[in-house]
């Protein structure tokens, strides 16, 4: 409901005010303002941490006015002080309607219950940080609820056992129990809980002496720090500062019971943590402001103790994380290089891994390609060898002819010599001639065999500086008989300055053989002009061209692009490998091979190879 009329709003305000501060509004109309009574001063980080948590949780929903009073009951005590405090609060908050009063700590609750201030008689009370055992001694009136803090000496003892293996002594450090607040109850708990351990009681000892004592503690001792509020010689300070002084001198780890003590000299333990304290208080306040009756909310144990430890202290005392209770939080851990530079390290590592993978891949790929190349070359070499055999097969009748000629002459000569020797008038001169002829023909036959052997030799590829003209001559010598058999003239037109190329002599011979045989086969039976012309000459200085031209019919245009394809053949018994192998070999010699039809008819195969001849100006052409 919104009250729009300003007059009406003013009237309502008056009405509420006239009911008086003591008059309790209906539960669902509680004022949205609370008073926090803190038993201690707010200078310590524990209470201020709890208060901040309370504030932020309350303000997270809708704005609530929060008043704060620090009773400082641990520093100021006595009836007179409390009386003054009561008067002060009465006059300060007389006109202030309050929804909930929040008591931080046992002393604050004790105060507010003992001095039932009249104006607050109907205001619900929420307490936190009140010790359980202490609470049991109070009679809790209605309209009061809260959460107990469960700091038990048993927990401190258990933490001490985690921190110091084979624990034998515990040294208990703190102010006199009477002025302690949160840990006062330890006095009664210690004799019950501690069994089988020696207790070194340093309670109430002035700081100067205490520091001496904690510096000479025996081995297997843990120090339990409660709270110290002064040096015992007139100077007071917050308990965290006192802890620092103790820790500076201590020769054993200090187990503490509050989170705020972790990181200031205490190694840690099951510690009271301020944030959940404030949050639990805020939860209860909100429930009450939202209409729940405080009496209806049962008092319960707060869940505000956490196992928290200081990494630096653990390092100092040689406590490994594995010894700590499960679920422990470790603070102030120096981030490792990995934690600090995780992204950089990850990225760098990833880059290195990628790079390694890439390099490995490339090396592998290179090796694979090399292997493939070697294999290809070997295959090519084998195929070329087979091709030479095939060529030899095709030429077998010429070869036989070439051999049979001298053999025939030899046989006739030998038999004639026999006849002459058997005759009475043996002409010695003639016999000498015959023997000379036999020897010459034998030599001739041997040359044929040698040529054949050279062709069929399965030699390793051997790149040398080769005279192309010599190569052509050798081939033509070999093919001469074959040409004669087919009534074909082989014409040489060779570059006078012996052109040289870098290559394998046998492979180059094979190219020429294949081209010339191909040319001879292109000349059909009917052709009148029967000639294959082999020409070598320089091109542009840097190249040597070898061409083989025939007087056949030329290559049909639809087939000219396929003549170098493997297994392309127009012959009845051809394998179709000759020109394909020629092209492969030329490629392996960094050359180029192509074919064109001549104007006057016939095809002309042209091979261009890099020249290694010293050119006329003296430089080496490549």
């Amino acid at each position, binding site marked *: 409901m919104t009250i729009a009329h300003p007059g009406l709003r003013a009237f309502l305000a008056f009405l509420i005010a006239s009911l008086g501060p003591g008059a309790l509004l209906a539960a669902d109309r509680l004022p949205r303002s609370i008073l926090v009574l803190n038993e201690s001063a707010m200078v310590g980080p524990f209470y201020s941490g709890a208060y901040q948590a309370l504030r932020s949780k309350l303000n997270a929903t809708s704005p609530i006015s929060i008043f704060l009073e620090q009773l400082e009951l641990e520093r100021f005590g006595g009836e007179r002080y409390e009386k003054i405090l009561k008067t002060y609060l009465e006059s300060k908050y007389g006109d202030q309607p309050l929804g909930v009063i929040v008591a931080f700590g046992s002393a604050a609750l004790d105060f507010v219950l003992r001095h039932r201030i009249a104006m607050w008689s109907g205001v619900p009370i929420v307490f936190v940080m009140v010790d359980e055992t202490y609470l049991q001694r109070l009679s809790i009136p209605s309209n009061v609820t809260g959460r107990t803090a469960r700091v038990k000496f048993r927990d401190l003892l258990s933490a001490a056992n985690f921190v110091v293996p084979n624990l034998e002594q515990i040294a208990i450090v703190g102010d006199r129990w009477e002025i302690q607040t949160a840990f006062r109850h330890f006095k009664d708990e210690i004799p019950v809980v501690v069994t089988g351990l020696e207790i070194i009681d340093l309670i109430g000892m002035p700081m100067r002496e205490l520091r001496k004592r904690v510096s000479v503690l025996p081995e297997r001792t843990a120090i339990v720090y409660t709270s110290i509020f002064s040096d015992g010689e007139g100077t007071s300070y917050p308990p965290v500062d006192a802890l620092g002084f103790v820790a500076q001198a201590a020769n054993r780890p200090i187990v503490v019971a509050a989170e705020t003590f972790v990181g200031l000299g205490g190694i840690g333990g099951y510690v009271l943590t301020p944030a959940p304290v404030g949050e639990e208080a805020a939860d209860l306040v909100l429930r009450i402001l939202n209409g729940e009756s405080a009496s209806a909310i049962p008092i319960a144990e707060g869940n505000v103790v956490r196992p928290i430890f200081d990494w630096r202290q653990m390092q100092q005392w040689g406590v490994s994380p594995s010894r700590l209770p499960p679920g422990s939080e470790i603070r102030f851990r120096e981030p490792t290089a990995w934690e600090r530079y995780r992204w950089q390290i990850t990225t760098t590592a990833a880059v290195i891994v990628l790079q390694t993978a890439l390099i490995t891949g490339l090396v592998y790929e290179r090796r694979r390609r090399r292997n493939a190349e070697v294999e290809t070359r070997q295959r090519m070499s084998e195929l070329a060898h087979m091709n030479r055999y095939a060529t030899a097969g095709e030429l077998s*009748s*010429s070869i*036989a*002819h*070439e*051999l*049979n*000629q*001298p*053999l*025939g*002459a*030899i*046989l*006739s*000569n030998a*038999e*004639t010599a026999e*006849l*002459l020797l058997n*005759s009475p008038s043996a002409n010695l001169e*003639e016999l000498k001639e*015959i023997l000379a*002829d036999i020897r*010459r*023909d034998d030599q*001739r036959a041997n040359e044929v065999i040698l040529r054949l052997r050279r062709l069929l030799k399965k030699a390793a590829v051997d790149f040398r500086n080769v005279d192309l003209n010599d190569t052509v001559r050798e081939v033509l010598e070999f093919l001469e008989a074959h040409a*004669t*058999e087919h*009534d074909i003239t082989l014409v040489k037109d060779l570059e006078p300055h012996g052109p040289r190329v870098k290559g394998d002599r046998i492979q180059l011979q094979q190219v020429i053989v294949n081209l010339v045989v191909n040319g001879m086969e292109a000349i059909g039976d009917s052709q009148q002009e029967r000639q294959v012309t082999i020409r070598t000459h320089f091109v542009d200085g840097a190249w040597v061209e070898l061409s083989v031209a025939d007087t056949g019919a030329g290559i049909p245009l639809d087939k000219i692009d396929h003549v170098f394809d493997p297994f392309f053949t127009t012959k009845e018994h051809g394998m179709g490998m000759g020109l394909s192998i020629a092209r492969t070999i030329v490629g392996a010699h960094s050359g180029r091979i192509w074919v064109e039809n001549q104007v006057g008819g016939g095809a002309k195969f042209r091979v261009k190879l890099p020249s290694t001849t010293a050119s006329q100006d003296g430089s080496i052409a490549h």
Partner: protein
Amino acid sequence: LNTQKLVFVVDDDPSILRSAQRLLKAKGFQTQVFVSAEDFEQNATISYGMCLILDVYLSGKSGIESGRELAMSQVPLPVIFITGDDNEATHSEACSVGCVAFLMKPFTAKSLLDAIEKANLHR
């Protein structure tokens, strides 16, 4: 000139010509040798000859062709083909022309003399 004993030899291989000539001479034959069919046709007096030993493969006009012409000529002369080629096709082609003998190089003296003997009977 004893035409009864004149034998013509045509072969483009000088070694063959020389060895054949020697052999025939040792056996008492007169010989005339030619390096090509054309040479033989121009220079030989065919009617004097007893027979012709003719190589199949010759540069220029082939032996087969020459033999064929000779078979169809006015003055037939018995032909003994000789060849260094063991080709079956050549053999049958030569036989179709008509010949007294077809000798594969290398051939024995006896096989040649037998062939000449046979040619003499044909004549």
